[in-house]
């Protein structure tokens, strides 16, 4: 079922107080998102990768996670290079060999240096942020993150929303798997016909209805055990003495990158 592969481990980052890690991750993300030049962005990516290395995360899983994120980035590479003004790098079309009705004269695309630079910048920044979040927020399980959110002073409702969304995702996924198995053992093979679409529509409906029922029963069971809108933690997040220092160092690094990014043109550097 839904797993949290990165939350298990014994590295220094895994043991750190999730509150400190969350604050550091947030600060890093904000700073990285504001970068405007590729140099500091590349450094941010290196920082993110270094954090992941430090957390000793399993590389194949990490790469798979990154691949998922970069699907979205790939779409940017389809459009961004061709949509900013700048010095032309690559020109596709017009196609004089082809008949006019198939490829008219105006049909041409030009990739510019500014466009490619922008796409590169976005790629560097988004990967840096994802890596940092996996290394910092992903190394605590979702319950710990939920509690950290509450203990950082955010409203309890937000923390509960996070925790219950997670719990409910499991429920919905379970119901879906159950229904899919039930359909499979009765000989259902998906195709591109009306029967398939109708079956999937029914399944989606059933998943919703059943998940709702189950959520209701889970809620009842919680109330019977005295739940009154507040989660109590069994284990106070232990944390280590150096956690605050660790967070401070990460935040300072991120701030330094941002400062370098802003000061770069002022200092006349390329």
């Amino acid at each position, binding site marked *: 079922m839904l797993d949290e592969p990165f939350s298990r481990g014994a590295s220094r980052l895994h043991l750190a107080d999730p509150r400190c890690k969350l604050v550091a991750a947030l600060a890093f993300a904000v700073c990285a998102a504001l970068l405007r030049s590729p140099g500091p962005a590349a450094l941010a990516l290196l920082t993110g990768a270094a954090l992941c290395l430090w957390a000793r995360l399993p590389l194949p899983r990490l790469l798979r996670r990154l691949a998922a994120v970069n699907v979205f980035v790939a779409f940017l590479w389809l459009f961004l290079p061709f949509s900013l003004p700048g010095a032309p790098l690559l020109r596709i079309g017009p196609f004089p060999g082809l008949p006019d009705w198939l490829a008219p004269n105006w049909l041409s695309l030009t990739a510019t240096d500014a466009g490619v630079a922008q796409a590169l910048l976005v790629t560097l920044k988004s990967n840096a942020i994802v890596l940092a979040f996996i290394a910092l927020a992903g190394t605590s399980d979702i319950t710990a993150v939920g509690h950290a959110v509450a203990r950082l002073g955010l409203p309890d409702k937000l923390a509960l929303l996070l925790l219950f969304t997670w719990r409910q995702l499991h429920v919905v996924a379970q119901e879906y798997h159950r229904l899919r198995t039930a359909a499979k053992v009765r000989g259902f093979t998906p195709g591109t016909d009306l029967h398939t679409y109708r079956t999937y529509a029914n399944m989606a409906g059933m998943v919703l209805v059943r998940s709702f029922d189950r959520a209701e029963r889970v809620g009842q069971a919680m109330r019977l*055990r005295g739940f009154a809108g507040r989660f109590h933690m069994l284990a106070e997040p232990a944390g280590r003495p150096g956690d605050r220092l660790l967070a401070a160092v990460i935040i300072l690094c991120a701030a330094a990158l941002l400062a370098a990014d802003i000061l770069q043109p002022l200092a006349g550097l390329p």
Partner: protein
Amino acid sequence: MSTATTPPNSGQPHNCAHAHAHDHAHGHGHPHPHPHSHSDDDATPPLAAVQDIHFTYSGSAEPVLRGASLALRPGRRIGLLGHNGSGKSTLLHLLMGLLRPQSGRVLHRGVPLVSETRKTREADFVPLRREVGFLFQNSDDQLFCPTVLEDVAFGPLNHGASPAEARAVAEATLERLGFAGFGSRVTHRLSGGEKKMIALAAVLAMQPQALLLDEPTNDLDPHTRDRLIAILAAHSPTHLIISHDWDFLAHTCDSFLTVQDGAVRTATHTPHTHVHTHTGGDVHHHHG
């Protein structure tokens, strides 16, 4: 209780009559081997009770309960029978305040929680829920923390125990049920039987005065079922069990009620001796 061991050469369908006749001999008329002294004194109010409950599910024309009454007194071990859809579970949900009746009263130690004259709030049921533990039919509805220990400690924490106290209670409860060392196991990876026992541990950790169990033996293998019988015998002086498993009820209860035509009646049939034959008799097995 009785174990049917057969010679290794009998691969044929095997008759368990001897084992069963013996097993049920003392179950007849006196279902429980240790008869309890009931506190039938009507002067002391029951721990929890419903009186003259009428209930219809919204969107349904047919009422489920029509004037149902039930009292749970300390020391009583009640088996609740009735066919599917007769309203057994509904009755328990009404008793615990998970549903509100259209009319009738719900009482906790004589104090009305639901009645015609007062408006019921969710908080009114907190003291009752503290004293009466409820085991759901489906353990997946009950276990929702990532680890076993967190789940078992959930109730005590809600009732104001410190994390250290809650941990101690949870660990002691798990040990009492024979699940010491299960604390760090992940709840959704447990087997069906283990889930049921951990859910029971989670209820028992709240140290209730009485238990309500909704079809506890569904999906239990004979071994886990025996374990449940032993645990209830040792740790549950007062309970009400919904079940279709006559044999289980005979071992765990000493009085029997049934929900019929929307009302609670004294069960007319009590557990009886029966003889059955089944295949697989050459495999070492238990009968209740």
